[in-house]
């Protein structure tokens, strides 16, 4: 199935505040078939670095296993000299860094996509204006709960088993779709999107063509109390 939508990848991201670093990261393979987004958690030693490692590794090797996560965490820990840190940084380093992983792997023919969702970053598939699937399936109140997150601390990753990974993978067929759009959103935007209304908010996101337009939309929604102030990232494909 020949499509052009996989070529049209648009990415927008704004930090929580102008004076704080953005801890969201994203990645995509050169052919656009593998996409990853990771939201680094605030209560972390260095969640930006962790989110970057997660995205880079997923794009180069999307076959997630418990060993994959362990290897990523080993790379993270090797970047620091724990013994040279003052006690408070040692404590924070030992506690770990945390991040979501929302990844998608399109088949070579683009007739299907596998979506993997660990945490509360949100994937949405629309065909024209019709919602086909939102992953993970969340109610707005669910965003107030503590999500499962990938961690640099091995003890915190005990829940990552082969069974868990299978449970967060979703295979979607794309063959019947006429004009699909794929959205990848970190949680503040994901919650805003799920709170709806669908068509209006989809239209607003698809209309964005520049970083300035994205920034204006996010700031307006934040200041009017409709969107939580947090690092906010959107990937649009299609």
């Amino acid at each position: 199935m020949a499509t052009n939508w996989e070529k049209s990848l648009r990415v927008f991201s704004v930090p929580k505040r102008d004076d704080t670093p953005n801890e969201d990261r994203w990645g995509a393979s050169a052919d656009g078939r593998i996409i990853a987004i990771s939201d680094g958690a605030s209560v972390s030693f260095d969640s930006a670095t962790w989110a970057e490692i997660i995205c880079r590794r997923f794009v180069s090797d999307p076959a997630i296993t418990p060993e994959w996560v362990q290897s990523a965490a080993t790379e993270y820990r090797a970047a620091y000299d724990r013994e040279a840190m003052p006690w408070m940084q040692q404590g924070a380093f030992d506690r770990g860094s945390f991040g979501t992983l929302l990844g998608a792997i399109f088949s070579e023919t683009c007739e299907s996509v596998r979506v993997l969702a660990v945490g509360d970053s949100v994937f949405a598939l629309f065909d024209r204006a019709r919602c086909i699937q939102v992953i993970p399936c969340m109610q707005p109140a669910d965003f107030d709960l503590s999500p499962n997150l990938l961690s640099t601390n091995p003890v915190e990753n005990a829940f990552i088993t082969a069974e868990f990974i299978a449970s967060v993978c979703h295979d979607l067929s794309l063959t019947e779709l006429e004009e699909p759009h794929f959205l990848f959103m970190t949680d503040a935007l994901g919650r805003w999107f799920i709170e709806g209304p669908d068509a209006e908010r989809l239209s607003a996101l698809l209309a964005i063509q520049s970083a300035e337009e994205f920034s204006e939309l996010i700031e307006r929604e934040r200041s009017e109390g409709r969107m939580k102030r947090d690092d906010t990232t959107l990937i649009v494909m299609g």
Partner: protein
Amino acid sequence: MTYSAEISRDNPTCILFVIDQSGSMDEKMATNKSKAAFVADVLNKTIYTLVTNCTKSDGVRNYFDIGVIGYGGNGVGPGLGGRLSGSIISPITEVANSPLRVEDRTQLQDNGAGDVLERRIKFPVWFDPTSAGGTPMCDGLKKAAEAIVAWADSHPNSYPPTILHVTDGVSTDGDPEAIASALKQISTNDGECLVFNIHVSTQQGETIQFPSSDLGLSDSYAKLLFRMSSEFPPHVSKIAIDKGYKLSDGARGFMFNADPKDIANFFDIGTRPRLTADR
């Protein structure tokens, strides 16, 4: 909606510990440590956790202002010593940089692969146990009220202050209920001050854990401490429920006859206001 303000460097929140340092706090608990020593240890660990939760690779972020008041035979005053002894409440960056000392300890840690390894850690100490004399609880809570009024006035948009009061006995300087009521009415735009009370004990007996009414309390002192305690906001109730406590609607931040495990849980539950969606 109350208790929903974002906790940030521009709008930190305040956590104030009010600690009974009366003579009876030297009684030994089942752990063979005195109540004073056990509470000091939990307090130091709690401050350590608060500091490390605010620490990133580029430094400590001022999400909290922290204070300790001690009351006992030596009077009432700031519970943190050294460079922090000049004020009741200090920004967490100052607290992080000013422990009394940093001890070297070893800790057994699970490496996630089924092995338990011994790891060297640094354990900062801010608060040393003291136990002497009577229980000037009213003076202690008045000192807390003075500090919290000033803090709330200068932080009108912050998540309201949380006060954790630890005691093992009855006040010897009057009835503290009116002062506790006044404390609970101090507020920011995000809600009223939260006052949580824990009674620590070496007695074997029924432990009361986060009740929603005083109907089941036979001890008049327990009823008093219950009335002095604030209701949990919903997200704090959830933390307590996740720890295995059974809570009804209207559950208050109050424990009576608490044992060592409950003391540690009380401190953890009471010092986790929203940081950012609990992550």
